[in-house]
């Protein structure tokens, strides 16, 4: 028996004004899978992540996370109605996100950034949250920066804090929205190392939007090429990168890998 996918997009439509960004998108991710989404800008890659993280709603279709609809809930008679904030709040606990601009809280120390949500949202005691936070800082290699403020850290360090902050909530699914695109080239490596370590050592489901093709190739179980709101082509990294079947995929890879 094949397992239910942990993420399922079923004919999902998303519009921004007159622009249809996702047009009846079908997309699935299995539990523990590491999926990378590549494609030109405007293709809808980030939108998929933002919809999952409940930062954007949908205009059609159904998104399912962990077997339950995300942006809908089941009414007593079994039909689907738009989700309430309470339902979104419940569903959101399965997901975590790492942002392109890090989005750390500037008025909190590194440690506080990581512990604030566990305390306020999960109800951990400050002590428990601090222990968890210190472990995570160890994991991302920033154990000695706990009392610094974000503006005192480099971009690479800030992003690693961002990863720790998301992990502190123990999500089942971790979303990475172009995590290294805002970094100076020499800082990209340290962040990719952490992401790579996560991919290897944990059975987290990971969904990564990135331009770092070599990295995508290394860590992914599957790569999806998005173009104009639909999946043009998908497959294992070897398949997609060495021998793409679609012309459009070939075009894109040539432009990017040169």
């Amino acid at each position, binding site marked *: 028996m094949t397992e239910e996918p942990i993420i399922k997009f079923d004919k999902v439509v998303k519009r921004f004004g007159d622009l249809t960004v996702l047009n009846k998108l079908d997309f699935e991710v299995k539990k523990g899978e590491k999926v990378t989404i590549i494609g030109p800008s405007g293709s809808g890659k980030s939108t998929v992540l933002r919809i999952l*993280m409940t930062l954007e709603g949908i205009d059609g279709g159904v998104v399912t996370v962990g077997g339950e609809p995300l942006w809908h809930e089941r009414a007593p008679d079994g039909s689907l109605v738009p989700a309430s904030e309470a339902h979104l709040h419940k569903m959101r606990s399965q997901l*975590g996100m790492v942002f392109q601009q890090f989005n750390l809280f*500037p008025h909190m120390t590194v440690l506080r950034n990581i512990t604030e949500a566990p305390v306020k*949202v999960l109800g951990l005691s400050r002590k428990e949250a601090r222990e968890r936070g210190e472990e995570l800082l160890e994991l991302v290699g920033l154990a000695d920066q706990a009392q610094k403020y974000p503006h005192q850290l480099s971009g690479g360090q800030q992003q690693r804090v961002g990863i720790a902050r998301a992990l502190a909530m123990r999500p089942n699914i971790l979303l990475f929205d172009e995590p290294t695109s805002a970094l100076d080239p020499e800082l990209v490596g340290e962040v990719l190392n952490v992401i790579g370590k996560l991919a290897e050592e944990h059975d987290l489901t990971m969904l990564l939007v990135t331009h770092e093709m070599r990295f995508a190739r290394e860590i992914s179980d599957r790569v999806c090429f998005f173009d104009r709101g639909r999946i043009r082509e998908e497959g294992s990294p070897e398949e997609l990168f060495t021998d793409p079947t679609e012309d459009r995929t070939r075009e894109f890879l040539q432009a990017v890998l040169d």
Partner: protein
Amino acid sequence: MHWTQYLPPLIEGAWVTVQLTIYSTILGAVLAFAFGIGKLSSNWAIKAVSVAYIEVFRGTSLLVQLFWLYFALPLAGMAIGVDLRLPPVVAGVLALGLNIGAYGAEVVRGAIQSVHQDQLEAARALNFTPRQTLWNVTIPQAVPEMMPSFGNLAVQNLKDTALVSLISLGDLTFRAEQIRNFTQDSTTIYSMLLVTYFGMALVLTGLMRALEAYVSRWRTARS
């Protein structure tokens, strides 16, 4: 009379002015946050009340508001059988507080809206409730933005306290007027009055700048 003899009553008046400023500023700050946040509420009733409060108290003259509370409110009270006569000090603090609260509310609203969308998204991703986001993420970052405007409003409030002398409240201006009526020594008295207000304003500005610097510790990471 020698000008130094004016000092004791003026100092008494100055003390009243200081107290008025403090009480009305505190009242104003509370109202500013309440209605500034209220104006951003998704509950349309709260929003409507906040907008109405802000528009009415910003859109009418402070002296009109003061006179209304002192002269007109009691009559309205009589019509419905409630004793709404306010002692001058209550009418004064209330009028000043309501007035500065309305201006402050717009400052609070603007500062809250200036907090970057990214911060709100990060908070939502971490599953903070909207209220948790407001108090733990938005407001700490909004407060440094508010301070410069609050500093100006505080000095404005200090100047506005002079108007309470017109409802016979014994503040600095009232005392000065009493002395002037007695001695007809306008030049000296009014010069002293102006200098005293100037001095108080400078002290107040200094305090607000110190507060601004203290709060700016939070405003650390604007990249």
